[in-house]
């Protein structure tokens, strides 16, 4: 198989649990998806469905008492001899040197709140130079040069001056750009962007998304876009992963998901997008009920209490598995195959 | 909230200890077996008695009788046990009369002896220079000190919530003025402030009045911290939507404060109070050490520790230092409980 056909990141049956005294929270409970170079995967779902924990799990930076308890996270990376090798991130020591090289160097992370994601008491330059040095081994002044370049790359005007400023001195859009620049410091091949545009106004949102696309084209980066905004997904992504209560309920190419959603949950999500074609003053459909409390995870299919197609005796008894329904699309629902 | 508190294991232990100590407060007379001031030179500085638990193969606790004299060479009091004289212990024995909770007249005590006056025979923790039973004094001291702490905190709480609340709720000039007062009060070193205030107490006050005044003085210092906490909470709550909503809906200010704001920061207040209590207890012992707090014949932890604060106690009668153990225990317990409560009330420790 050609290298391009192989995913550079292959997440299989990832499970991350939080062990609290009150009980175990299964924040991610069997998530599987693949990420290809130069392409974008969107992970969507309501708040609390495990999107962010999935991102942190990949980097192995889940806070205690959380822990990756199962699954594999295969990362294909260039080894020293030019050959590609594959590591399972799930088996690495989370405090070890290897995973630290991967963080920022292979996989970078951008958060939704640029203000609080950059240290308030260090200049942007300070943090950027640190990252660059860490992953490139450059000297201080060379690293600074590169940091300025990076800032220029993400479209920050007068980067020579901005580099010595603090996050709170920048406007929201610039801050997010700086954040992206910071993430790119180690030339990662995968960028995980966790709600990168949520805190921004619509115009700025568009600019940032443009920037991401532009960078992706230029650096051949894979992007994992975590969002609850299906509009963004439609605009940006090649693949979509829909998560509910820590599980992947459906995944597939963006067209398939948007035009032929299989899982009742996906359908409901799509229906809740306001449409310009809709009649004025029609009530926006909402998803009935709310997400169950993490401790009170329902038996059977986790979505069954809210599901319009709930089949008593089936959905509340057995857990569905993710099954392919077409060449590229998979769904976990008993509507598409009995247990 | 409850869950978070329970995670703090030290806090659970701490709160159990605190409850235990306040039980002692309630039952001090019952737990003591001798009046706290009954003195007798012939048992001056008697070391803690060993209690023998088993007699003739069954559990029948007893102590030995003793005789004492002063060694003419060392000038120490020496005591010799009299193995022929076994004095059996009983629980719920009769002893000196008192009123339980200040109401029910009784003469039952937790322990006592058979066939002799308990006051003359039983010295679980030994005696002080005047031959007074340390165990019994400790019980009464616990009562005094813990009540002072509680009363002091109550007053501090009242002042703190009132002034901090006013400061935080109205803001503006009132806030500035109160903040200034707090800053000035905090700039004055505490000990001179105590000294000045304590020395200014009228001398013809009875022990009860002095007791109250000391409490007041201690709390005068303690309220600023509470006021700060309350003000901070008020300031942040003022911005909260539900308060604004209530305001817009035309609720009166008192109503807003009582029915909306107070409940929402009650847990913070409880935590802050719990943390202020040990400071009050330390203050009481320090004031007594300086000779400014409660004075004999009042019995408090401070008074007991002050009497042990000398070379001869360390060298000859180290058991006089025993009262330090409950003091340390209770201060730790309060601190851990308070920390636990605060963690629980506010996981991010604001």
């Amino acid at each position, binding site marked *: 198989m050609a290298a391009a056909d192989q995913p550079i990141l292959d997440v299989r049956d990832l499970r991350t649990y939080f062990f609290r005294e009150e009980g175990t929270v299964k924040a991610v409970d069997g998530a599987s998806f693949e990420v290809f170079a130069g392409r974008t995967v969107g992970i969507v779902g309501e708040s609390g469905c495990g999107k962010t924990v999935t991102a942190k799990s990949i980097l192995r930076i889940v806070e205690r008492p959380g822990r990756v308890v199962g699954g594999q996270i295969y990362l294909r990376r260039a080894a020293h001899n030019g050959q590609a090798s594959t590591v399972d991130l799930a088996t690495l020591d989370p405090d070890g040197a290897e995973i*630290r090289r991967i963080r920022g160097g292979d996989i970078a992370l951008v958060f939704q709140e640029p203000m609080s994601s950059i*240290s308030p*008491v260090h200049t942007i330059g300070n943090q950027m130079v640190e990252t660059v040095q860490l992953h490139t081994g450059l000297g201080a002044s060379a690293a600074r040069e590169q940091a300025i370049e990076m800032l220029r790359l993400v479209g920050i005007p007068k980067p020579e001056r901005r580099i010595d400023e603090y996050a709170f*001195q920048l406007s929201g859009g610039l801050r997010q750009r700086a954040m992206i620049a910071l993430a790119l410091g180690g030339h990662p091949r995968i960028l995980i962007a966790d709600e990168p545009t949520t805190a921004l106004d619509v115009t700025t949102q568009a600019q940032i998304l443009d920037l991401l696309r532009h960078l992706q084209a230029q650096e051949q980066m894979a992007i994992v876009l975590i969002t609850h905004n299906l509009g963004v997904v439609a605009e940006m992504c090649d693949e979509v992963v829909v998560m509910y209560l820590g599980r992947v309920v459906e995944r597939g190419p963006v067209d398939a998901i948007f035009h032929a959603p299989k899982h009742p949950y996906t359908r409901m999500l799509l229906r809740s997008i306001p449409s310009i074609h809709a009649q004025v003053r029609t009530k926006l459909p909402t998803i009935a009920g709310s997400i169950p409390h993490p401790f009170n995870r329902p038996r059977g299919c986790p979505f069954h209490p809210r599901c319009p197609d709930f089949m008593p005796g089936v959905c509340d008894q057995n857990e569905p598995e993710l099954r392919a329904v077409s060449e590229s699309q998979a769904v976990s629902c008993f509507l598409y195959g009995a247990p | 909230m409850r869950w978070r508190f329970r*995670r703090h294991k030290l806090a659970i232990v701490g709160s159990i200890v605190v409850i235990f100590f306040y039980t002692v407060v309630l039952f001090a007379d019952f737990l003591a077996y001798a009046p706290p001031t009954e003195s007798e030179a012939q048992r001056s500085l008697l070391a803690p008695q060993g209690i023998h638990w088993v007699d003739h193969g069954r559990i029948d606790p007893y102590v030995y009788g003793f005789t004492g004299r002063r060694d003419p060479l060392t000038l120490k009091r020496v005591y010799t046990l009299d193995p022929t004289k076994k004095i059996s212990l009983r629980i719920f024995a009769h002893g000196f009369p008192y009123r339980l909770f200040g109401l029910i007249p009784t003469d039952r005590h937790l322990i006592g002896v058979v066939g002799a006056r308990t006051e003359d025979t039983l010295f679980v923790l030994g005696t002080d220079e005047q031959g007074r039973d340390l165990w019994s004094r400790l019980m009464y001291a616990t009562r005094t000190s813990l009540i002072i702490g509680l009363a002091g905190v109550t007053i501090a709480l009242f002042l703190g919530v009132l002034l901090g609340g006013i400061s935080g709720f109205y803001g503006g000039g009132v806030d500035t003025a109160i903040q200034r007062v707090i800053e000035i009060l905090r*700039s004055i070193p505490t000990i*001179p*402030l105590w000294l000045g205030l304590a020395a200014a107490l009228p001398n013809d006050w009875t022990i009860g009045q002095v007791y109250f005044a000391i409490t007041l003085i201690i709390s005068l210092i303690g309220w600023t911290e509470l006021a700060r906490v309350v003000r901070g909470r008020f300031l942040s709550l003022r911005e909260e939507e539900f308060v604004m909503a209530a305001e817009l809906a035309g609720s009166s200010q008192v109503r807003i404060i009582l029915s909306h704001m107070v409940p929402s920061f009650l847990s913070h207040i409880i935590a802050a109070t719990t943390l202020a209590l040990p400071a009050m207890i330390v203050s009481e012992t320090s004031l007594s050490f300086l000779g400014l707090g409660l004075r004999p014949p009042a019995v408090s932890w401070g008074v007991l520790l002050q009497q042990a604060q000398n070379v001869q106690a360390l060298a000859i009668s180290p058991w006089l230092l025993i009262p330090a153990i409950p003091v340390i225990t209770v201060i730790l317990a309060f601190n851990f409980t308070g*920390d636990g409560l605060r963690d629980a009330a506010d996981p991010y*420790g604001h």
Partner: protein
Amino acid sequence: MLAYLSRRVVLALLTVGAISVLSFVIIRLPPGDYISSYIASVSMSGGFVSEQEVQVLRREYGLDKPVYVQYLRWMGMVVQGRFGVSLEYRRPVSEVIGDRLWLTMVVAIAAVVLTWALALPIGIYSAVRQYSLGDYIATFVGFIGLAVPSFMLALVLMYLGFKYFNANIGGLFSGEFDLAPWSLAKVWDLAKHLPLPTLILALAGTAQLIRIMRANLLDELSKPYVVTARARGLSERRVILKYPVRVALNPFASTIGYLLPYVVSGSIIVSLVLGLPTVGPLLLRALVAQDMFLAGTIVLLLGVLTVVGTFLSDLMLLWIDPRIRLEGTR
């Protein structure tokens, strides 16, 4: 910025004024005055003071005037930099204090440094490893210092030092160095006497600092910038020490102002028990003897120290925290 600073200066001056009034009130609160305690001490040693003499003494020290006149006279002197003559020591107050002030500072600073050296690592550890066994042990040990009455700890340690280690008893110098001019040997002698009082003083404050550090740090540890830093591949040690610890230290700057005067006044009891030649016992004695110029000067000094300290720590906060420093410059 300038407006802010000048506003702070004016406020500080007002506070100092209020403190001076309060200091005077405090030292004049107890009934009687210096003369009555003077008579008591003379009588105690079998001396004699006649009624007439009492009148003369009162007049001489201005104690026959109304309290506010006494205050104004005192302030008049203080403003000129004269603090009056200690009634008890018969020496200018500045001389009496001068001997001890810097020793007080040495002890206080040593205690503060030790407090920080103990509290910060423990605080960081117990925040990073919240609810671990180590957290419990560290917190417990830290709190022991808070719970044991310092006067008792001081005496017990001093006695044990004598009994088992033949250590010097109390004070800051051995007898032979008390009078000696400054030399390396004398400094060494001081250094040998310092650990005990420093440790006792430091233990008393450690718990509080541990608690603050732990809370601040817990607060910061959950911030996204920590996750980001980690995601950039920094080592855990570096992540913690460079980012959240640095931010959590900011509030500490504002405590420095209170810390020094707090240690000085907190050291009164310990200094008393250990017989240290510092300002604390002097203040206590002056208060008991109602040596009003001496007591007033010390209380005022401590108050001013606090105000100045607060001011300085505000400046320091301004300096170390860019958020405050650059506020409004954009």
